[in-house]
């Protein structure tokens, strides 16, 4: 019955162009017919085998000749079938083979066409061959569908003829197809479930968002996610359906899922476009809010629908024609339609785009905006919109990433590189006045200590001390080490205040530089012995690195000190060391021998640095203006925040999270403007290249100072085993250049230069971190 229906359909098809040749072959017997098909199949097989040795054009021509051969007599077997109906089975198999062959050779031709297109060779030319082939392409359209249905029907019939097992197979396949329809339903349910969970979390984060930046970011992220989530799940469902269909007998049904996924893309596109347009619109404020919202909705719906329709039509053409000459002629029109449409839409948003670009701090984008003011702006509006999209995405990525610590580091490093290569125009401006500097340092005392008590670092030390005080641990030492200005002394003071308050006997000792004779140590030990005579004592030993000098015999005092620690069982020692000193001691003496517990002072976060500096600044009370170089955002209030953030990212990166250094950078960044206001510019860079002009011996002297924190001339000469004259020369040059400062004959690096010199010496492998 189905055979008859197919046959009648074929007769009624509008594109039949039956030639005399077609009818001529209709009288042949079924056996010769099958033989001829087998021969065509063998020809196709031969082409397939020879394809390695054939050029793409030759392959395409050979396949096309064969394809035409198969396609031109399509009518024949229907006519023959009406004669041979019900007569014999081989004839039916012939029909199946014919359709199979048509599909096979069509696929082969499509592949050859694709290869030609990939090689950039034109597949369309005005000659009789091409025109004839276009005709054949049109003529076989209905037969391609027919071939599909016939093959499916033939498959069903063959299975059914196998009896129960075959019937079961057919049933299972059909059941499988029906089951696939359930996949999107399941995914939809899951999406709903996840959405409800997200909604709950969103509410929680929303309330907490007033407390922390993390929750603010989370709320924004969840709001964004909930808009995309159902569609992402649908896409996933369609992908699953596609994979399952590919493993079934009905692979061609995947064409349907393509249309469905287009619809999902349309929805995602609309949400994204609305987001971008809202961003563009918010920067310009050229129209009332209600009008803008309406414009956004209209634009996104219009553009989305037209794109959806265009792509669906294109897909329909591709499904009908496959890769063919005809499709290659039609395809560019879709591109033109989309392009024209984008030009049209972007030209309607010209003003907003121009405003957006102008307010970025990217020179290139600003130049584009200026060009848009000219009369050819219509043609520029689309590329400008693309630039807006890219800028928007980059901004969002940076914003999103800034909640992760490692992204902060990356972003800060990028900013550092960017600003280091930027010309600093503020060098000619007047530096900040001494009055401000004095007031700033005076006020900084109260803000230099962030919530250190809440940190794990601090709590670990407290835990160790508490265990010792409760006689639950025999550990009686903690070494605190860190870079200069990182806050070691402050932590020590904090601990001292805490334990004094709790009623413990405490003794704070600041080791004066440099005690590397046993006589000098005796004073300290006597002090401790006296205080710990009757009860347990906690000693807070600041600058313990002053107890050694890197020379033969220079570590003996430190060794004696370690032995004394071991002897005084009722004393707990909390000692601070400079990080390079601590590492040097570790290598030479073995730091873990007595100070088994070591704690590195953690670097401050960007927020802590920012709060510390801005709060201190507020006390001094001057108006701040950020240099244009830091500005990039669109809205005024965001612009200030963004400029501020960019600046503090830079400061944080340059200072390595060390508050003392950050303060130094802050003061180097301030420039005086009119009145009392101050301008925050790029910090003035130290001329570090000057160091490379100094000779190698001087570098050894500086490395030695870095390892010891501070040295006088004779100590430096002993530590480096260099003549005093060279050491003196190194010290004088350091003072001249401004990277060394002198106090009572002792030399140390100035805070402003500390990080730069450290980096330079590290680069020469003269100092290193373990």
């Amino acid at each position, binding site marked *: 019955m189905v055979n008859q229906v197919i046959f009648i359909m074929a007769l009624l098809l509008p594109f039949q162009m039956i030639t005399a040749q077609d009818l001529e072959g209709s009288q042949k017997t079924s056996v010769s017919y099958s033989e001829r098909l087998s021969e065509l199949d063998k020809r196709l097989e031969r082409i397939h085998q020879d394809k390695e040795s054939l050029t793409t054009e030759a392959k395409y021509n050979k396949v096309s000749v064969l394809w035409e051969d198969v396609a031109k007599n399509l009518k024949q077997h229907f006519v023959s079938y009406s004669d041979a109906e019900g007569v014999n089975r081989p004839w039916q198999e012939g029909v199946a083979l014919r359709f199979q062959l048509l599909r096979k050779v069509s696929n082969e031709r499509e592949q050859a066409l694709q290869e030609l297109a990939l090689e950039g060779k034109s597949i369309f030319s005005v000659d009789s061959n091409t025109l004839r082939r276009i005709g054949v392409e049109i003529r076989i359209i209905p037969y391609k569908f027919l071939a599909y249905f016939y093959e499916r029907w033939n498959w069903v019939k063959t299975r059914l003829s196998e009896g129960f097992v075959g019937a079961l197979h057919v049933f299972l396949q059909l059941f499988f197809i029906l089951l696939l329809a359930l996949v999107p339903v399941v995914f939809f349910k899951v999406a709903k479930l996840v959405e409800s969970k997200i909604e709950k979390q969103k509410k929680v984060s929303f309330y907490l968002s007033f407390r922390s930046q993390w929750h603010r970011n989370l709320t924004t992220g969840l709001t964004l996610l909930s808009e995309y989530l159902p569609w992402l799940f649908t896409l996933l469902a369609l992908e699953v359906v596609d994979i399952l269909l590919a493993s079934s007998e009905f692979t061609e049904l995947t064409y349907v899922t393509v249309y469905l996924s287009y619809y999902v893309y349309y929805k995602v596109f609309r949400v994204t476009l609305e987001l971008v347009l809202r961003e563009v619109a918010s920067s310009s404020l050229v129209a009332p809010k209600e009008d803008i919202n309406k414009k956004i909705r209209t634009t996104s719906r219009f553009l989305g629908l037209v794109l959806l329709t265009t792509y669906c039509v294109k897909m329909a053409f591709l499904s009908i024609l496959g890769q063919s000459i005809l499709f290659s002629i039609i395809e560019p029109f879709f591109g033109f339609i989309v392009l024209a449409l984008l030009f049209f839409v972007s030209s309607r948003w010209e003003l907003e785009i121009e405003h957006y670009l102008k307010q970025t701090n990217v020179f290139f984008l600003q130049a584009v905006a200026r060009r848009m003011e000219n009369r050819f702006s219509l043609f520029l509006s689309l590329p400008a919109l693309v630039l807006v999209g890219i800028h928007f995405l980059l901004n969002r990525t940076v914003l999103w990433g800034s909640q992760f610590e490692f992204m902060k580091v990356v972003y800060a490093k990028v900013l550092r590189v960017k600003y280091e290569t930027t010309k600093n125009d503020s060098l000619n401006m007047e530096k900040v006045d001494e009055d401000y500097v004095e007031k700033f340092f005076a006020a900084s005392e109260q803000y230099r200590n962030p919530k250190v008590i809440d940190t794990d670092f601090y709590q670990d030390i407290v835990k160790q001390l508490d265990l010792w005080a409760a006689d639950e641990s025999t550990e009686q030492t903690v070494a605190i080490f860190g870079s200069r200005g990182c806050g070691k002394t402050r932590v020590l003071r904090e601990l001292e205040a805490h334990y004094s308050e709790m009623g413990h006997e405490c003794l704070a000792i600041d080791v004066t530089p440099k005690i590397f004779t046993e006589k000098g140590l005796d004073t300290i030990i006597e002090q401790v012995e006296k205080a710990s005579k009757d009860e347990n004592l906690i000693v807070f030993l600041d600058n313990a690195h002053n107890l050694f000098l*890197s*020379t*033969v*015999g*220079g*570590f003996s005092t430190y060794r004696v000190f370690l032995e004394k620690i071991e002897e005084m069982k009722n004393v707990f020692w909390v000692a601070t060391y400079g990080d390079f000193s601590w*590492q*040097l001691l570790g*290598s*030479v003496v073995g730091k873990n021998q007595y100070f088994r517990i070591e704690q590195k002072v953690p670097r401050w976060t960007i927020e802590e640095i920012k709060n510390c500096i801005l709060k201190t600044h507020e006390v001094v009370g001057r108006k701040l203006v950020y240099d244009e170089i830091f500005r990039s955002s669109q809205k005024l209030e965001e612009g200030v925040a963004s400029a501020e953030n960019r600046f503090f990212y830079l400061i944080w990166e340059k200072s390595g999270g060390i508050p003392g250094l950050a303060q130094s950078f802050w003061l180097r960044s301030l420039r005086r403007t009119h009145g009392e206001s101050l301008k925050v510019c790029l910090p003035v860079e130290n001329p570090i290249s000057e160091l*490379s002009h100094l000779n190698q011996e001087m570098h*050894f002297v500086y*490395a*030695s100072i870095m390892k010891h924190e501070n040295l006088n001339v004779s100590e430096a000469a002993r*530590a*480096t*085993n*260099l003549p005093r004259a060279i050491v003196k020369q190194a010290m004088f040059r350091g003072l001249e250049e401004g990277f060394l400062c002198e106090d009572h004959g002792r030399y140390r690096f100035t805070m402003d230069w500390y990080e730069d010199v450290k980096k330079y010496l*590290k*680069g*020469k*492998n*003269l100092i*290193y971190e*373990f």
Partner: protein
Amino acid sequence: MNSNDSLSEFLQLLQFQKISTLVVGLILIVAVGKFLKSLSGKLGESAPNYRLQFLQVTTILSFLLYILGTVGLVFGVLKPSKELLLALGGSAAVAVGFSLKDLVGSIVAGVTLLFDRPFQVGDRVTFDDTYGEITNIGLRAVRLQTLDDNEVTIPNSKFMSEWVASGNSGALDMMIVCTFHLALDSDVAKAKNLIYQVVATSRFVFLKKPIKVLVSESYENFELVLKIAVKAYVFDVRFEKDFESDIYERGTAILARNDIKRPQGLLPSEMPPAH
């Protein structure tokens, strides 16, 4: 293709335009090679920590530039046919077989050195009786600068058959071994401690890696002595000899100051009779 065709095609290759393009191209390749070398030198100066890495990357890039650049240039400009290549290839095989085999062998060895990496540019190596720093690994030969500032050129093919010892294998730091001899009745523990301190406080020492002080006995100059070998790393191979010198200078002084007995040598009468 007969011999006449080959000859006519070969003569076509010798057109002025093609030859001049080839020459300009080759000059350009050499210029880029030189530029790469000077660039790596400058980068090495600005970031001494990565000096050796820059040199190593430049060596690989130079190799690729010379080999791929030359082949690309010849094929791109002359576009020789397959037949001509076969004909020339046959002649070249004979020519190479008889006259240029050492050169080709060195080039092949150069490529092997590049990937096998028994040593790299910047390494301190011992080859045969020569010790010095590898300054260049070229297509044909390796250039080595000895500590007395002589430049030694060794064909690459030599490294295929003979052993070579690299002191630092691409790292900036390198182990140095210094030996002190003590009398048998000297205070070894004290001497060991002093020598350790001498090394640990040297301005050239690289403390990221450990210092080892080892004691052994040795029969030197007809006398049984104690030998203290100290193994430590110098922070930059360029200061290898300075480090050694610093250790010996300060070590000898410290041992003398602390009355650590050194071998005095035997008197002629105490020496065993010569056979």
